[in-house]
């Protein structure tokens, strides 16, 4: 009121602010409020995601079918089949993958202490691409049928992860700089293997490879859900238990050690947890860029950097972001479907640029 009066009257602001706990007002928003808002956002985006499409359905109709399905007797109507068999698994998978990539991104950024790191930095996506490309172009694991791509990409992701881990390991454990450099170098190597396979492969199959490389939830089904969901849940339990030590690690390896953190063990575990989450996400949906990079930033902007707040918020917000992205991917050029990686890049890149320009001190511009 005091300052507003002065602004209104056009008088100079008083040189002295009235004494009082004015800094209190800048306290963070309570976590419960943020989580409740994000939960509402997720429910709304998921309802929209299930309702919108070539056969539009009202939110009430959507929830009727869902309630019926949960009770164990899905409706045998057209709406029932569209919702229960096609759209719901797709929306749920998008939510789980969005949550997993956001979580992996938040953690990788602490692991390498670089705010511009993303979950694919450590070679997981390029390794998975080699595996998936080998399946699509060379017919590897053909006996596994629809699971072939998933198996191929998981194996590729694991191989890449192991390679990055072994190459960047040194006497003092995993160091951030070595992780970044080895991840970048090995990613480039795997990408050239993918390019080689595409170059040697047949042109028709190349189309599906490119589509897969940009990511899609078009092949989502119920049986794809359990593995990513379990991986996400297990990772979240571990990471929430490490909330404080993640904050300490964000201070740097040496301060973390002085705060009683076993840095070597923590880094190794974080590497494994994030790579597995990213690998599982890539296996079911292809390489969806920018989510793991941008969403953690948006989340930190709202809740700060305390990981006990960042991680749960990221799960809900990342899920909403991906559901919305997938909704756009399949409606913008309907009846065709766009790769979701195109959408996330179109949203993510400008967002990131705005963030970088607004907060230069976070990105080293003033240091």
């Amino acid at each position: 009121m005091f300052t507003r009066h002065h602004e209104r009257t056009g008088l100079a602001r008083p040189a002295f602010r009235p004494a009082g706990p004015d800094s209190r007002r800048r306290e963070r928003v309570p976590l419960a409020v943020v989580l409740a808002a994000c939960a509402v956002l997720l429910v709304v985006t998921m309802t929209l995601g299930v309702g919108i499409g070539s056969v539009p359905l009202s939110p009430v109709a959507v929830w009727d079918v869902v309630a019926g399905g949960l009770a164990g007797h899905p409706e045998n109507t057209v709406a029932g089949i569209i919702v229960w068999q096609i759209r719901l698994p797709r929306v749920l998978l998008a939510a789980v993958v969005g949550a997993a990539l956001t979580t992996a991104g938040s953690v990788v950024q602490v692991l390498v202490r670089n705010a511009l790191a993303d979950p694919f930095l450590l070679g997981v996506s390029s390794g998975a691409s080699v595996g998936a490309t080998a399946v699509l172009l060379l017919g590897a694991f053909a006996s596994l049928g629809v699971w072939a791509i998933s198996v191929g990409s998981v194996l590729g992701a694991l191989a890449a992860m192991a390679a990055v881990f072994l190459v960047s390991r040194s006497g003092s454990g995993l160091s951030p700089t070595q992780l970044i450099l080895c991840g970048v170098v090995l990613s480039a190597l795997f990408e050239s293997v993918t390019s080689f396979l595409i170059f040697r492969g047949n042109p028709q199959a190349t189309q599906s490879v490119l589509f897969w490389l940009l990511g899609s939830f078009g092949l989502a089904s119920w049986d794809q859900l359990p593995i990513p969901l379990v991986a996400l849940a297990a990772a979240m339990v571990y990471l929430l238990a490490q909330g404080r030590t993640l904050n300490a690690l964000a201070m740097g390896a040496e301060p973390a050690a002085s705060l009683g953190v076993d840095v070597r063990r923590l880094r190794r575990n974080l590497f494994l947890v994030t790579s597995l989450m990213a690998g599982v996400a890539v296996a079911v949906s292809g390489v969806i860029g920018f989510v793991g990079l941008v969403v953690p930033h948006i989340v930190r902007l709202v809740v700060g950097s305390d990981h006990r707040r960042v991680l749960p918020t990221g799960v809900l917000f990342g899920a909403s972001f991906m559901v919305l992205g997938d909704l756009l991917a399949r409606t913008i050029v309907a009846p065709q479907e766009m790769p979701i990686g195109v959408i996330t890049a179109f949203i993510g890149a400008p967002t990131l640029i705005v963030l970088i320009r607004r907060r230069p001190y976070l990105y080293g511009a003033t240091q």
Partner: protein
Amino acid sequence: MSLQLEGLAVDISGRRIVTGIDLAVRDHEFAGLVGPNGSGKSTILKAIYRVHRPSAGRVLLDGTDLLSLRPKEAARRIAVVAQESASEFDFTVREMVMIGRTPHKRSFDGDTAADHGIVDQAIERVGCERLAYRRFNTLSGGEKQLVLIARALAQEADHLILDEPTNYLDIHHQVEILELVAGLGVTVLAALHDLSLAALFCRSIHVLRAGQVVTSGPPGAVLTPETIRAAYGADVLVIEHPDTGTPHLIPRRVQPATRKDPSASKSWLPAPRPAAGQPQPDRVRDDARPPRPGGLQ
């Protein structure tokens, strides 16, 4: 003996950085670790706060080998303030100080009212109440250092390790930080660059050269021109601090230099205070260098 190093040696990537370090800090003592760049000050401190593992020798805390403690137990005994910045992440001052509670907490433990009380007290102790909700990254160097001390206080350790805590700080903050630390009543081991400042605050000083302790003792006995020449290869004049009588070091030019303004002769020295008739004690304890024309004599 509160903190004791016995024959400590540390190797980094196969190279021995410090060797045969014997050093003891008594309870509630403020001890200084000085020596030229690269003499192993930080390495010794990092062996104490478990970043480096000793290759030989032991670090004893009240007689217990530090390595036999679990990391969290050790962190409840020893807190550290070093040069650092959390520039990649956006923590408020209060959140930074709360991170000091880490070694007291198990997985999933929330912040209790007791934790908030300890954090508030720590922030109050360093006089940063008005900064409590500011972003750490937006603080000045001196303010950051105060906050890091508050974080160490929230850690509730009875030993404080400081690694050049006054680097890059102005003279006001240098004195403020060390005065604060000296008043905490905990056992302190601090690596310091400014020898005069070290003399002003430390009860004992350990001088390092090339990874070994050259000499240890109270500042007055240790900081002599001879020791400084031996450890640093630098020529200095040592005078007495007019308030405390502690040694104060004045660097000398390598090239012979003449006084720029002869009329300002000795005006920087305090007015002499000896009793009348007594011969004035030599304030300048010069080494054996011959007096130069236009010099101090």
